[in-house]
């Protein structure tokens, strides 16, 4: 794992030096611009939706080739009203209100509804808390246009409230590292990226072939990624398309959001692990195994070593731990720190002394929380499978999370 991460980070670094070359190839006459439909699912998003729509208005893309479809998914607040107001004012903004029985089926359901109304050749998805930079759509759309083998293209997201508190700082650091290490790294080495749920573009033809999003999947994005690869396309990571999104400011919200992701990934592992032989694109196998390692093997290893550590504090187990295990621990820590620092230094004004100190702290706090998180996710997933709550559970889960802003990244 350590080495795989270091390897990915190296890829991320190389990609950061290289991706601008791809940008230079994107010079297309305006006539050749593809028609783009932006889908924004919104469920009780009255606090953020207006900012999102405002940012859509500033998008640097020919308006006659653009449609913004905002899906009001069963909202009980003012979301619907806000959307309707904008729809009347701007011709390229469309409001779609989901109606039971299709309403409240979660993000996948909403996206599928919105997709039905869309007309663009390229579908771009944003979460309701996103404010993309004006050039983001252009980069995504032209990127797909120029790269025929890409089934989808993924941009970079940044944290808008990074400096709000310690939690958002930590999330900011994490998201930067995740994108440069996992996304850019995997893209560079394996031509493989996972759709992050926001700020990505996908070909209409592919979505039609796949029959839209899997409404049972909690992390519909990962699931969709695997299916795209299975069709023989790859997903390009293009850091030039930037969106800014809001991250949870409270630990409770963060916890729920992350538990959902972890459970979603577990779902994907279980769904595909036993069908590995059926997967056409063998590269996906790496990803599934990566998830498997992170969620089961690495996790159990970490748990065991923690337990041994704690037990050893209380009762001397007389373990003859060689120097090598200490060396490994230290190397692991140093790798973590240097990887994160490298990712931070790739962005302007992120590599600060304060952030550096937070990185040192992060290893012992934020990263350890993740272990607890996986425990809960595994427990919940086991419960789901044992009780066979396959269909009902998603909806109830949504109702229980009123603070949830549906910002899955």
């Amino acid at each position, binding site marked *: 794992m350590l080495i795989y991460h270091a390897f990915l980070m190296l890829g991320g670094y190389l990609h950061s030096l290289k991706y601008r070359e791809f940008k230079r190839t994107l010079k297309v006459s305006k006539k050749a611009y593809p028609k783009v439909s932006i889908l924004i699912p919104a469920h009780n998003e009255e606090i953020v939706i207006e900012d999102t729509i405002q940012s859509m208005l500033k998008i640097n893309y020919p308006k006659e080739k653009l449609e913004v479809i905002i899906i009001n998914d069963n909202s009980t607040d003012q979301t619907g009203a806000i959307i309707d107001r904008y729809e009347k004012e701007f011709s390229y903004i469309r409001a779609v209100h989901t109606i039971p029985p299709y309403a409240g089926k979660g993000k996948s359901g909403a996206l599928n509804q919105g997709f039905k109304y869309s007309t663009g050749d390229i579908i771009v998805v944003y979460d309701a808390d996103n404010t993309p930079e004006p050039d983001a759509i252009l980069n995504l759309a032209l990127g797909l246009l120029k790269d025929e083998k890409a089934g989808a293209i993924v941009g970079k997201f940044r944290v808008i409230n990074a400096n709000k508190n310690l939690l958002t700082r930590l999330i900011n650091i994490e998201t930067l590292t995740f994108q440069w290490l996992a996304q850019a790294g995997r893209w560079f080495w394996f031509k493989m990226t996972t759709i992050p749920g926001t700020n990505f573009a996908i070909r209409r033809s592919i979505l039609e072939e796949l029959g839209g999003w899997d409404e049972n999947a909690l992390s519909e994005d990962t699931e969709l990624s695997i299916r795209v690869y299975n069709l023989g396309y790859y997903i390009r990571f293009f850091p030039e398309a930037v969106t800014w999104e809001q991250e949870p400011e409270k630990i409770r919200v963060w916890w729920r959001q992350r538990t959902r992701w972890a459970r979603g990934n577990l779902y994907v592992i279980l769904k595909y692990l036993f069908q590995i032989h059926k997967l056409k694109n063998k590269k996906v196998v790496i990803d599934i195994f990566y998830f498997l390692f992170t969620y089961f093997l690495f996790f159990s290893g970490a748990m065991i070593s923690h337990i041994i550590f704690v037990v050893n504090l209380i009762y001397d187990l007389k373990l003859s731990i060689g120097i090598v295990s200490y060396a490994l621990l230290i190397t692991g820590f140093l790798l973590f720190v240097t990887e994160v620092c490298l990712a931070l*230094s*790739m962005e302007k004004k992120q590599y600060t002394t304060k952030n550096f100190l937070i990185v040192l702290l992060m290893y012992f706090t934020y990263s350890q929380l993740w272990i607890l998180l996986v425990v809960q996710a595994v427990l919940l997933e086991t419960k789901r499978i044992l009780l066979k709550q396959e269909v009902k559970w998603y909806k109830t889960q949504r109702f229980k999370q009123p603070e949830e802003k549906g910002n899955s990244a």
Partner: protein
Amino acid sequence: MKKKLKRNEIWVYIILICFFTILQNPSVLAAKEIEEPKVLVIYTTKDGELNHEQRYLDLLISHFTSDIQFMNSDNVKKSDLTTTTHLVYFGQTAKLLPAELTKMMEEYEGTILAIGYNSEQLGSRFAFVKPLNEVTINQLQKKTTDKTLDIPEINAVEIEISDGTEVLINGSMRGEERSYPIMVGKRESYYYGFDNIDSSRATLFAESLHDVFNIEHDEIYPGYIRLEDVHPLTDPKPLKEIALMLKEKNIPYMVAVIPIYINPITGKRTTFADSPELLKVLKQIQKDGGSIILHGYTHQYRASETGEGFEFWDVENNSPIYFPEHEKFKLKELEDFSTRDEYIAYINELKVYEREYTETKINKGIDELAKYGLYPLAFEAPHYTMSQYGYEILSGYFSTYVGQVQISDKDWEIMSDAPYITSPSFLHGMNLLPETMGYIDPDDENAIQNLMGKRERIRVARDGILSAFYHPYLGSEKFKELLNELDQLTNVSWIDLKKTNVWVNGKNVSIHTENGEIITDVNRYKIIYSSWDALIYYIGQIVSLVAWILVGIGSIAVCMFIMFTFHFIKKNKQIEG
């Protein structure tokens, strides 16, 4: 005509060249000399049985030959003498010998050496030996040399010398001029005036045997240093320091290893898997000048501490190991049986267990070392104790035995060293590297002086072995002192077992040496995969290796990332600036 002569000349030259080549070729000459003496030892003892005295004689004579036979003086037939080149008569007790024996002796054409009693019954060949008065002596000298040997005071019979008698050994009182012949010879008949082969007197006798057998060994003293009782709980630090000292001085040595340590109180077994540091040191020793010697399997039988207990002798019953350690058992004596045959049948039955026990321990010992890549080249029994049958069993597994030997099955305390390297018949072909100088006793302040003090006695025999052992737990400082002393010995050739032809033949492991290399044939499946401790040890080794590789790659990555980070920081500053 001229041409013909030339041709003849050529033939003469060729023949001459061939002749000189044969003369000068040492191997051809050596072959003549190497022709082994065939020795028959005829003994007279009180009970007619062979005892430790004869075995001690075996130790001395087997230095010259591996062809030696022992016979009771009552049982010798004429045909027994036909192929022998040397006859040795050992009269341990005064007894009337069969008349045929006297006749046989008289007619015998080869060399005869008579020891002790009954020389007057050996015929005219020994007429030159005329006993005179009993005298007291405490020193022996070899006549033709200045070699003397101090001995405990003893009464000996002075021998009158007649014309043509050669004196080999004289006895005297220290400081007195008068000396008395003790060992004499006339033509091919020799007589040694003691009725036993006491080890305090043996070195000079051993030296004189070179004359009896007419074998001129070079005056070079083989020697060895043995590090003793190394087991899994031995502190590797002093051992490592000692090994380095020996390496520095380029002295080969031996390490007696006990592969399993058993705690006498808790019964906990410790193996080399639990002592990776020590194992590393031992492997390095094996790679450098050291040779591993198997020193038992656990060095104990019944609950005793490893390194303290006996393993191949039942000390409680003072008998060979005839039954499992936890069983109550009383060994029956000959008197308990109505016939001798019944007794022999009884002992043979017990020997079945002894064989099984001994073979199991030997095989386990070899396997346990081989598991971890240590290959023993010789064997040393714990406390040197082993029965005669034990040696016979052992001889199927080892070609070399190191240390002292127990020469009686009646009492373990009857044991002996030999003055030189030998291969006594009771070791069934095993080469014995005896231990002559002893060890460093931590309670003895003058231990080193005492040990070194023995060197002159040993050197009385022209190829006497100078061998000492040392317990590494005493620390490297003390060893340094000892080594400095040993290093000053002249004319010593330190034995490197790897460079001698040795073999070990275990059930699962075969070892032999070839040109200083250890060649092994190991049934890995049987010895490694059949036990958890070794398997776990090896997995641990692999894991640790992989972990180090990971650390290595990780460190490189860390360095790279730091460089990249600074690269970006610089770049960002330039853009901002």
